């Protein structure tokens, strides 16, 4: 890459005169820089509420995989800022690694916790607004946003042998999270939303009696609906 750049500069210096003479491109033409598209914003967010439902998955836990449903409700203070609360409900199933470790061959049950639910809220920043075109016919407008959240996540120790009581196996953990998402604006105020968010929680584990940090990296896809001005 660097070699090409140096070679290019050398050649340019040798041929600069002829380049200048052969460079009439910008004379007498309508340049792209002279044209702007000042388009009415087709999908306004400011002062709008947004609520919806997403299906999610927490696939990166070492011992469980948790499908989840997330309900969201938020309000856009401006085109680039919004607050939102999320309530997630799911269930973490043992994954293959857990089952292998739990098998007679190993007999070593890890102290894993499964996702049950979470309530978080926070702010979103969406500095990027763009659009894509499909075959030059359909144009989709979208934004990219960055959510920052805090809240509570409730999980439960997977191993029932630690404590037979459902409630005593619960781990209620303060949570903070951050991520990235995209809204693809459809028709009639509907929005397709994709979001990846990493929630980090400080969890007390009943089995070992220790505090530990845990990450739930979730992938969410769903629909939201924009409502009228509040």
């Amino acid at each position: 890459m660097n070699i090409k750049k140096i070679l290019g500069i050398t050649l340019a210096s040798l041929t600069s005169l002829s380049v200048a003479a052969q460079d009439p491109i910008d004379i007498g033409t309508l340049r792209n820089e002279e044209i702007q598209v000042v388009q009415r914003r087709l999908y306004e967010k400011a002062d709008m509420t947004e609520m919806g439902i997403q299906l999610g998955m927490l696939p990166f836990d070492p011992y469980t995989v948790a499908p989840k449903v997330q309900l969201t409700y938020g309000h856009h203070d401006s085109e680039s800022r919004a607050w939102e609360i999320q309530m997630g409900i799911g269930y973490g199933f043992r994954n293959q690694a857990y089952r292998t470790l739990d098998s007679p061959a190993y007999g070593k049950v890890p102290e894993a916790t499964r996702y049950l639910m979470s309530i978080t809220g926070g702010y979103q920043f969406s500095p990027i607004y763009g659009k894509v075109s499909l075959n030059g016919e359909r144009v989709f407008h979208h934004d990219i946003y960055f959510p920052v959240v805090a809240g509570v996540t409730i999980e439960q120790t997977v191993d029932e042998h630690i404590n037979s009581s459902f409630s005593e196996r619960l781990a209620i953990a303060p949570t903070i999270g951050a991520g990235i998402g995209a809204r693809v604006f459809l028709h009639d105020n509907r929005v397709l939303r994709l979001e990846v968010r990493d929630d980090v929680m400080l969890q007390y584990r009943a089995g070992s009696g220790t505090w530990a940090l845990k990450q739930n990296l979730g992938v969410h896809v769903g629909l939201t609906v924009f409502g009228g001005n509040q």
Partner: protein
Amino acid sequence: MSATTSTTIITGLGLWLGVFGGATAIAQSNSDEQWAATFADYDISMARGDLQRAAGALIEIIGDESLSEFHGDALLNLGNTASDLGLPYGALLSYSDALTQEEPVTAAISKALTASEDVRDFGLLQGLFGENVGMDGTPSERSQMAWLSALDNFRKGNLSVTLGILAIIPTDAAAYPKAQHLKGIVLAQQGRYTDSLAPLMTAFAMMDNQSDMDLVNINLGRSYFGAGNFARAIEYFALVERGSPHWLEAQFERAWAHFRLDDMSGAIGLMLNHMSPFFDTRYYPEAELLDTYSLFLLCKFPAATERIEHFRDNYRPIHDALENALEGMSDADLFFAVSGGASQELPTRVYLDLYGEPRLQDSAAAVAQADVEIETVRGVSDSSLSGHFTTLLESRRDEIVAAEGARLRGVLSGRLEALNNMLTDTEMARLDILRLETRLYERAAGAGEMEEARRSAQRQLRVPPDHQNWPFQGEFWADELGYFRVNAISECPTSMQVGLEVAED
């Protein structure tokens, strides 16, 4: 038999008394009995429920010149019977004939208006009422008649008569908003642009249909343009909704207003819509030339030359194809080709807008309805009924095809002539551009550098809060149509003057 005998006696008595006592009194004294006798066959057939025979009886009366005083009633009843027989076009033609009798049967007015709506043949009544606007009727019927009459006179170019007729449509009539709209158009066509504003604004205020309101806005823009108030014209052209079928036309006319304000950038920005591939089936040769002239006035000679080449490459084949088509096609061919929206001979671009005209679509629907009814009446057993309506329907059908075909030929011939002129003009413009461009470069060669461009005011690109600014990268996006802003920098040297009438520097 007895009825016929008594009719003869009564008629004989009437003639005798007419000599001595006056025909009117005789007709009144004998009309009921005469009527009953004349329409006896019809009454009997109707009582039997035999509609075809009833219609046949009426046709017999109509064909008998000696019964001319009953022709009006017979035609009215024939219209009703045709309607009952499922022949709305036949009914319309009968009602129309009833209204053209020496003493028009005013009871046929509302029925004729309804039938014309059903078969979408408005031209028949326009012509009829156009020549007889004073016919009796209810206030509502008189308003409708006046409206149709005004339309007929407008299409014939009788502008003053049109204005007079429009004045009799009362403010509470359903046709009043469109009457005001037409009044504004007529006044504008008479060059009374300022006078045309009030009726157009009245029409706008009374309309509730967005498509009609868009049309009024275009016409308001045209009136302001005609009055030389280009800024206000731009405002009204800009009010036409982006989704309107009239939007592209409004953008084109708005571009002219910008051009007249010496705002070449504004004109070029609007013309970008017409240049986009999304509208490459629309016929806007003038838009390309307006774009070319704007670039020329900014001394963007290579770009102007490129546009001219593009124009010639695009429109020369269209010109040739249109010329051949007009030579080879009859008026009827033109009508069916354009109204059907499919033609091998005609280039699509030149007739696509005509195809979408409500007037042409109405005529096509009327012709199709006439064809359906011709097939229907050919299948009926009563030969007099079949013969009568087949003749009437074929005649009206051919009349519509001929009239609309001739109109289309007129429009397309006008386009051909204009296109021919434009192609010739571009040849001249190309030479002008070449001359000026050569002079520009000769000076640059002499001075050793390009002469500094004349400083001109540059507009500040203003992005309203609810708008988004996208860079233009040479691609056209469907959602960006109508949102182009051009801030073209004039490249005219200080010492060079370039105008539409290319001036010497």
